[in-house]
């Protein structure tokens, strides 16, 4: 099972010329990007009428190792469809998705998804929920437990191992959700609006916690959100999607220093970037509304 975790060793793809644009990304040693999406198109078939709806139209995106990239856009713009396609949960109509140089069209151990709703299995306790992905891989129980302990600590849930999800608060459930993904030690971590279902105070606390966790693990992350401040706080790059069908409107580099802490919110650059993104989203939305066409 472990050999699929390192397929990029045999990757033959040549380094891309345009790659220099992200030269100040944390890890540039790796010539093969962790995620390489080319001209991705996603269409949905209406179950009643059979009509085709385009959710994503020709999106290309690369993420280098150790990068935290966030896609922002209005609700229903197709950003979650894009993430689901990367996760392998939705089939692409055309285009390609490669993770560490290997084409993917189904879920795999190289990616792990943190869902918007915690969706913990209610009959498994916290520990067993965290080890779910590893249990499915048939890893030895002892090794799995040992690995889970580390991530239990990381998300500060030590002492809650034997609680059932129903007894946990929303924030704690979301931490289990996060640990469940992290413990599989994926090459690419996918976050689908991970804090959208939480109240504002818990959400902010969780954002700071995720920031701290990222500082420790330096995972390659692709997140989807509609919270602009969340995107700026956490990301190296923010990708702005147009309303449906989704296209990339702009790419904003968040050149705030790392490691970041909660104080970064008071940095002038923070507000500047947040405003830029806000303007881009709403401009693309206005163009979309007035012409019915997608922003260029």
């Amino acid at each position, binding site marked *: 099972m472990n050999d699929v975790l390192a397929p990029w060793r045999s990757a033959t793809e040549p380094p891309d010329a345009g790659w220099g644009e992200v030269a100040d990304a944390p890890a540039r040693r790796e010539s093969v990007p962790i995620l390489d999406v080319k001209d991705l198109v996603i269409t949905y078939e209406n179950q009643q009428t059979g009509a085709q709806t385009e959710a994503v139209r020709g999106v290309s995106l690369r993420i280098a190792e150790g990068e935290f990239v966030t896609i922002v856009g209005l609700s229903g713009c197709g950003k979650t469809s894009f993430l689901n396609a990367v996760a392998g949960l939705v089939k692409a109509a055309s285009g390609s998705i490669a993770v560490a140089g290997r084409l993917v069209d189904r879920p795999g151990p190289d990616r792990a998804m943190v*869902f918007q709703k915690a969706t913990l299995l209610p009959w498994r306790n916290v520990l067993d929920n965290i080890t779910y992905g590893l249990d499915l891989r048939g890893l030895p129980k002892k090794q799995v437990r040992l690995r889970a302990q580390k991530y239990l600590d990381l998300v500060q849930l030590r002492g809650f191992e034997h*609680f059932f999800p129903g007894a946990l608060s929303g924030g704690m459930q979301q931490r289990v959700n996060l640990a469940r993904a992290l413990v599989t030690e994926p090459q690419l971590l996918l976050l689908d609006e991970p804090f959208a279902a939480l109240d504002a105070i818990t959400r902010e606390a969780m954002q700071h916690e995720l920031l701290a966790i990222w500082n420790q693990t330096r995972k390659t992350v692709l997140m989807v959100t509609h919270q602009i401040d969340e995107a700026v706080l956490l990301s190296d790059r923010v990708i702005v999607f147009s309303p449906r069908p989704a296209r990339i409107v702009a790419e904003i580099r968040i050149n705030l220093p790392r490691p970041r802490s909660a104080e970064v919110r008071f940095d002038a650059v923070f507000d500047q970037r947040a405003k830029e993104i806000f303007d881009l989203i709403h401009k693309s939305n206005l163009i979309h509304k007035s012409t019915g066409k997608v922003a260029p």
Partner: protein
Amino acid sequence: MNSDIAVAKRQTLAESLGGALARLRTRNDAAGNVASSFRRRKLLENLTGQALGATVILSLFAAWEIAARTGLVDPMFSSSPSAVVLTGITMINDGTLARHFLASFKIYVVGVGLSILLGVPIGVAAGWFKWVNRAFSPLISAFYTMPRIALMPVFIIWFGLGMEAKVALVLMSAIFPLLVNMQVAMQNIDPEFKRVGVAYGASQWQLFRTVALPSSVPFLLTGLRLSMGRGMLGVIAAEIFGGAEGLGYLIQYAGATFQIDVVFVGVVVIAGFGVIVDRSLAHIATRVDSWKITSS
């Protein structure tokens, strides 16, 4: 008249017990011992509830006894609680009750056992695989609504007057609640849980084992409870229909020969057995579903 007085005594005893506990409660509240006062309050609630239920039953028995003794009703047709008890003791002593009970019990266990062995897998398959569902649904609906006793003449022709025909009727009575409940269980699996399983790379079998089966437990328990009740109906109906032993036969024969006491002994044994089966299953249900209790 003695039992009447005993009933009255028991009633006052229950009431005075309630009163004593109530006084105890007030004192404890004053002492500010919240946890133990809460426990005591719950216990009191429980006890008064049970006392209330017992009072109703005992009052009915008392009324029946009085009516029979004062000649308000003819004991020849109505019997009386004391007569039933005496007859019951005689029947226990001479072994007739045990013989009939064991005969019925054997058919019950075999019939319900077969229903579980066949009904659960068929129901699971019909809920999990679309084509099995399409193949079996019309048949299941046809049998589900039909009064099973109507099949008894056919079973007797096929299997004779022995155990097989009776088991067949029990099976036909008990299998459908299980089958239909398991089918519904499979069709009601939260798609979000399935999605989590798929995202973490679960195979179809793993999805079934880690998501479908655990989430079907409440349905299984409901199905078991229903089918155990139906199974009892089936046993008694089959034995009334034909044969030379069993509680159903006992009741039918005693009724035909105006031994009302014996009829009631049979009824009490059946009811008692039913209550024991139902209560033990309910007890198992609360244990198995501990994750649900925790979440409330």
